[in-house]
């Protein structure tokens, strides 16, 4: 009588601990991904002026591309500051529209195509845009998994017991006390090529 009871209690304890740890892990992962979005927005904002500097000479007559890129930079800076999901969305969209336009211009211009610095900046910018997208997707996926655990039985009981709150995902601010721990590494995004 005593031993089966003990086993049952042990199994329940293991389950409770594993759910608790899962939830905590997900929370830190969500924070890390949110921080990553901030990182990449910063990187993007600092890459664009450098890129513009290198292509300035080639693209005298392509004012629209310049405008698109400066707008994308402003959007990135704004998103980084406000951290609202709409602004992040907006920043991602703007850069993803600007990059193909710029690559067409590069393809059309043999001089620019041969310039290694331009291609390097283009590559870095494309990668930053991709990283931004992946980080955003991670936040969405992780928040979904986390929030699901909070509502489905029986993990919801454990979540209630320890007072876990639903994650707002992208609505969480990019800056603040929750990302402060490593905000040092966020300060200077060095673009080295």
């Amino acid at each position, binding site marked *: 009588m005593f031993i089966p009871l003990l086993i049952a209690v042990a199994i329940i304890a293991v389950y409770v601990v594993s759910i608790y740890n899962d939830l905590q892990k997900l929370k830190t*992962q969500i924070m890390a991904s949110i921080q*990553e979005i901030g990182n990449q927005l910063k990187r993007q904002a600092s890459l664009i002026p450098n890129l513009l500097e290198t292509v300035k000479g080639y693209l005298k007559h392509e004012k629209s591309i310049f405008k698109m890129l400066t707008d994308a930079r402003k959007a990135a800076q704004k998103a980084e500051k406000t951290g609202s999901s709409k602004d992040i969305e907006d920043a991602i969209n703007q850069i993803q529209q600007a990059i193909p336009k710029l690559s067409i211009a590069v393809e059309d211009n043999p001089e620019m195509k041969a310039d290694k610095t331009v291609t390097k900046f283009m*590559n870095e910018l*494309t*990668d930053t845009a*991709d*990283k931004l997208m*992946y*980080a955003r997707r*991670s936040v969405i996926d992780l928040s979904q998994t986390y929030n699901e655990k909070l509502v489905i039985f029986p993990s919801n009981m454990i979540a209630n017991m320890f007072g876990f709150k639903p994650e707002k995902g992208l609505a969480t601010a990019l800056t603040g006390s929750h990302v402060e721990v490593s905000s040092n590494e966020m300060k200077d995004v060095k673009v080295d090529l």
Partner: protein
Amino acid sequence: MTHYQVVAQNKRRSTIIMVLFVVFIVGASYVMAEGLGYGLSMVGCALIISGLISFFSYWWSDKIILGISGAREAKRKEFFDFYTVAENIAMGQRMPMPKLYVINDTAMNAFATGRDPEHAVVCATTGLLSRLNRAEVEAVVAHELSHVRNYDIRLMSIVTILVGLVALLSDWFLRMTYFGGGRKRDSDQGSGQIQIIMFVAGLILAILSPLIAQLIKLTISRRREFLADASGVAMTKNPEGLIKALEKISQDKEPLEAANKATAHLYISDPLKNIHGGVGMFAKMFMTHPPIAERVSALKQL
């Protein structure tokens, strides 16, 4: 169908095949062992031998394969797209950054190895990297990392152990029949009859089962390719990238010199190219990979 459903469906199907495979192996081993009158100790011996051989190749699979293929490490500077897409997918999947290698070969191919996500290795040929654009390279890397994430390397190693087990058993069976083996010949009449039936069944299985086991292994391999395609798309959310990459790869008719039959199932497309498009049901049974046309049409459902 969404990619979530496709991944789930592929997992279900490959579980069914694996269960069938294990049932077949256990059944065939049992009949062969009983047929010879040695019982299960013989199966145990064969399992240990086959297991030891495969265990070594599994544990050092990354190093062995990279050694055989003559691969060198891919640096961020030199292979920017390859490196950064792998970085992004690893970030998105929250798995450690895989080691990246390239093979200097104009044939278009890529493979993954390593026993778990911590030891993942993705290797691509320079031919593939130079002819695919960023989105396509991303799709290929996602496909390869799916193999790692789905533990296909582990799965195929276990499957190889079991195929090796059947091959050993049938080899022993045929040898012992030749030497007139069998210990329990002098048992009583009733069980003697069963003994003969078991012996005949064992003989048939000894001849057929290595082939059957091999065929099931190839079926599993093909099933895992579909699964890796689907879960790769789940990582990139861009089926178009993989479709384009597969189409480009299928137009490349050059076989990869660095590949051989032992490593063929690891690649994104069959590196040996010994069977070409428009294959019949029979030829298809002997392929490590499904025909690319079938993979593309599966992806177009997404």
